[in-house]
């Protein structure tokens, strides 16, 4: 058994373990891994998602239990301080010693901090680890403005993060260009103006000399004498390989940093010691990306397992900027410096797009290029560059698109040879993926991801894999359909038609007649929604095909308790009813909060308490608010003309009427509406699935707005119509959406996919060009007539009520539920 020690449990160190286990048989190797950080290796590439709520666990490459199951000794929180090459052992700061036969240094790098006077001051940070981000988030709460030193890939990522924290954001770059390694002047200029539009201030050609402040920074001073006052600074000016340990044990390091290795990734001085990842310097190059690190890990694994391995001779450094909301990519030789080239450039300052490709002198090969503002062609162009594919007769088509009206999409894939690498992180080729689609019958991105890991690293190739999948399926004569899942070869719309035509009332009937297998968590709730939108029978009849929220008619929360949201139409509520909510919440010890939907949420109810709570609410005249359903949630309202001095129509009355009309209506995703009493729009109707704004003459109807993660403004469908007409159009609009949308598509997403867009929608809904207006209205009328409150049904039906128990063999509640206290109310114990 060979004893392997890996120093550094970062992305590359982890990947090395994964690959070594995959390539060897059990018992060949005994692996010990030392990591200085407190947690197992995590995905540093997606570190910034930590700001938007990812947890350490979500970022984790593999949980601690993975190492246990695989027999790897993982020692986190331990810094190796010495390597005894004579005795072949390593020693950690806490005194742990381990012997090795082969040693792998995967110590990565640290942020490079330029020697600026005052960097030790409070409020100065680097951007590399989870702990850095914790510190930035904590400090950011008290800051108002922040500067980022470094206008490269990482610096811009950091700038986006501080901007999202709500800080006034500045980027300071030493050179005259943003992303100097990737962009030329014109590309940088376009990117600069795009970032300025986002509200980020860009300062180029600025050499920071001093950080001012008494203990805590207050501002920066530059070599040209100018200054900038900020409360926080993030330094993201490059990386410095962590070669200090190698140095102390006498291994050679490169003048610019990095442990010197040969083409086999062995250190120059000791063939039993390898260095991989960002810590390694190979042919005087260090690689600050994951893909080359993974490639190095493969090489060493192959050598250790006695497999053929090709020498490591450099790696493509093409990159794409993620996250910022501005597409930027550069590939191959972006500046046309390696050989003499002809550049083809497209620039549109108006829409902020700049594209440049460098073509060889003979016009036959693509050597590289860069894209700003629109990087959809990146995958294809990168492949053409790397594989020296023949160029089309008019190479400008590559960035301008084919302007003769003929489609070029897909044509490119055909010309790609099978050996072309699609996913560089996991080294998956086009041939590998095609093989899986053709021979293994894979038909979805998820299947491909789990079979060969393509797309699971930096994620940059996912659009390419998706396109390839679609193209291959088409080539195989398989219809590329929006099949629901492996159990139904039908789209949602087709299933809905089948349900209607064949009069199908249950999930079992549908899967027996039109599906296969035993269903899953994708098709069950989708079919439940279809059945509900067609027959409007109480969903409690088929409770086990519902998502847990619909099964228990409440939203499941952290810790396994549920929340209770009674309907408060239009946000209007009497003092008596308010008192009842207060009393119920008090009696059952529930946390209460006013929601963003103008009603009141009571959190922390155990499943067995739900029927009792609802019984009391229903007695007081409340009904279900459907906060748990893919159904109508709320119709928000402003106070309108009854009280407001500007109001031109009675918004509250109309909102209540609309909310009661559509309450309980099941749909592909949730639905929200709003009614504002005048143009000032206090009810935010233009961010709702349907919104009404009062005018002097009637109402303007807006549709397909969305808040949420990808906000979209609603679009005007008709203006100045009366109440009755508005309701007719909303009936038609909602029913048309329910009939034709894919599962879990909000109206905004649905409209974006609808050919013809809002004009087509207006044709269908207002002009009735399809002649289905009346049918849609009838269908809606049926829904309205058959509405019943689900909670009322449960409360009054002992059999249904009995389903709300935690244990079937014990009357107690879940004993593992635990709470802590905050501001005088309870909250769930954190997970």
């Amino acid at each position: 058994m060979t004893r392997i020690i890996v120093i550094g449990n970062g992305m590359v160190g982890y990947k090395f373990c994964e690959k070594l286990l995959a390539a060897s048989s059990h018992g060949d190797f005994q692996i010990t891994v030392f990591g200085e950080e407190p947690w197992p290796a995590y995905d540093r590439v997606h570190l910034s998602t930590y700001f938007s709520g990812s947890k350490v666990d979500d970022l984790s490459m593999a949980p601690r239990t993975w190492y246990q199951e695989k027999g790897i000794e993982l020692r986190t929180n331990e810094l190796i301080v010495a390597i005894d090459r004579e005795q072949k052992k390593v020693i950690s700061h806490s005194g742990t010693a381990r012997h090795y036969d082969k040693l792998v240094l995967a110590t990565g790098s640290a942020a490079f901090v330029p020697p600026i006077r005052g960097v030790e001051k409070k409020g100065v940070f680097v951007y590399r680890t989870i702990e850095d981000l914790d510190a930035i988030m904590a400090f950011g709460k008290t800051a108002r403005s922040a500067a980022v030193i470094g206008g490269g890939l990482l610096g811009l990522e950091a700038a986006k993060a501080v901007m999202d924290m709500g800080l006034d954001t500045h980027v300071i770059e030493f050179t005259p260009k943003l992303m100097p390694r990737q962009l030329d002047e014109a590309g940088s200029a376009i990117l600069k103006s795009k970032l300025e539009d986002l509200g980020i201030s860009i300062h180029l050609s600025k050499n920071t000399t001093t950080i001012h402040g008494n203990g805590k920074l207050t501002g920066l001073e530059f070599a040209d004498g100018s200054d900038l006052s900020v409360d926080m600074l993030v330094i993201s000016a490059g990386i410095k390989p962590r070669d200090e340990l190698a140095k102390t044990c006498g291994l050679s390091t490169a003048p610019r940093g990095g442990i010197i290795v040969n083409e086999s990734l062995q250190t120059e001085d000791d063939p039993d010691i390898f260095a991989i990842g960002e810590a390694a310097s190979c042919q005087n190059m260090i690689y600050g990306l994951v893909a080359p690190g993974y490639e190095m890990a493969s090489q060493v694994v192959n050598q250790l397992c006695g497999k053929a391995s090709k020498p490591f001779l450099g790696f493509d450094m093409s990159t794409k900027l993620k996250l910022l909301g501005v597409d930027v990519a550069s590939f191959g030789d972006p500046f046309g410096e390696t050989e003499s080239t002809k550049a083809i450039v497209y620039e549109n300052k108006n829409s902020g797009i700049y594209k440049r490709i460098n073509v060889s002198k003979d016009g036959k090969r693509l050597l590289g290029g860069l894209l700003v503002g629109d990087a959809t062609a990146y995958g294809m162009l990168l492949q053409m560059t790397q594989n020296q594919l023949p160029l089309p007769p008019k190479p400008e088509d590559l960035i301008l698109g084919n302007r003769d009206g003929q489609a070029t999409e897909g044509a490119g894939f055909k010309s790609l040879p099978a050996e072309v690498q699609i996913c560089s992180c996991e080294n998956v080729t086009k041939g590998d993926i095609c093989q899986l689609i053709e021979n293994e019958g894979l038909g979805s991105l998820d299947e491909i991801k789990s079979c060969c890991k393509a797309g699971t690293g930096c994620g940059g190739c996912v659009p390419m894999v998706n396109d390839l999948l679609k193209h291959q399926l088409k080539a195989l004569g398989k219809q590329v359909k929006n099949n629901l899942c492996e159990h139904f070869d039908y789209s949602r719309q087709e299933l809905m038609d089948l349900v209607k035509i064949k009069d199908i009332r249950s999930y079992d009937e549908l899967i027996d007649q039109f599906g296969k297998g035993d269903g899953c968590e994708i098709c069950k709730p989708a079919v439940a929604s279809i059945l509900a939108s067609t027959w409007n029978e109480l969903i409690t009849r088929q409770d086990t095909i519902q998502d847990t929220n619909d099964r228990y008619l409440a939203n499941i929360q952290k810790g396994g308790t549920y929340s209770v949201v009674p309907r408060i139409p239009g946000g209007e509520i009497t003092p008596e009813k308010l008192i009842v909510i207060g009393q119920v919440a008090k009696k059952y010890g529930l946390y209460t909060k006013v929601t963003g939907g103008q009603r009141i949420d009571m959190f922390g109810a155990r499943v067995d308490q739900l029927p009792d709570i609802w019984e009391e609410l229903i007695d007081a005249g409340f009904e279900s608010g459907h906060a748990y359903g893919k159904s109508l949630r709320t119709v928000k309202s402003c106070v309108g003309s009854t009280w407001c001095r500007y109001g031109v129509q009675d918004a509250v009355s109309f909102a209540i009427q609309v909310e009661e009309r559509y309450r309980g209506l099941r749909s592909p995703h949730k639905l929200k509406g709003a009614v504002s009493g005048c143009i000032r729009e206090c009810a935010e109707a233009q961010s709702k699935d349907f919104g009404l704004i009062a005018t002097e003459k009637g109402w303007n109807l807006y549709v397909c707005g969305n808040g949420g993660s990808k906000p979209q403004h609603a679009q005007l469908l008709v203006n100045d119509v009366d109440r009755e007409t508005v309701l007719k159009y909303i009936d038609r609009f909602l029913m048309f959406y329910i009939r034709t949308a894919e599962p879990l598509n909000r109206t905004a997403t649905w409209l974006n996919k609808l050919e013809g867009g809002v004009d087509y929608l207006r044709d269908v809904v207002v002009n009735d060009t399809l002649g289905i207006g009346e049918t849609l209205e009838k269908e809606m009328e049926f829904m309205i007539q058959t509405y019943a409150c689900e909670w009322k049904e449960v409360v009054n039906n002992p059999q249904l009520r009995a389903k709300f128990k935690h244990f079937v063999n014990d009357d107690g509640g879940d004993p593992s539920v635990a709470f802590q206290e905050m501001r005088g109310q309870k909250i769930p114990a954190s997970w």
Partner: protein
Amino acid sequence: MSANLEKYQTAATSRITTWFKAAPVSALPENGGACIKYKDLQIAIYKFSRRNEWYACQNLCPHKMQMALSRGMIGSQGDEPKVACPFHKKTFSLKSGKNLNGDTCSIDTYPVKVEDGFVYVGFED
């Protein structure tokens, strides 16, 4: 009761020492699950009517340590019967306990038998 992973251990039918009489068959929903209490353990039992099969596993989802698997939807992936945790839809094989859509660690499964209208779960204690 603490939400403690180590307490759950896959039981092999051959080594069962206790067949615990958990509940009448009628207490379980068709094609769905419910939770039972055995000593300080919470066990999810599923009546997979479509396949005419029964399964049992720990109620604790190892992803975020939530007592929730009995409330999950069941179904199949290929031939493998599975359950999806209601919290983040991690799916686990009801046969092997393996996580089918990620690297979350496995769950423990228990044998089930039905006699005289009652469901029994087997433990090796």
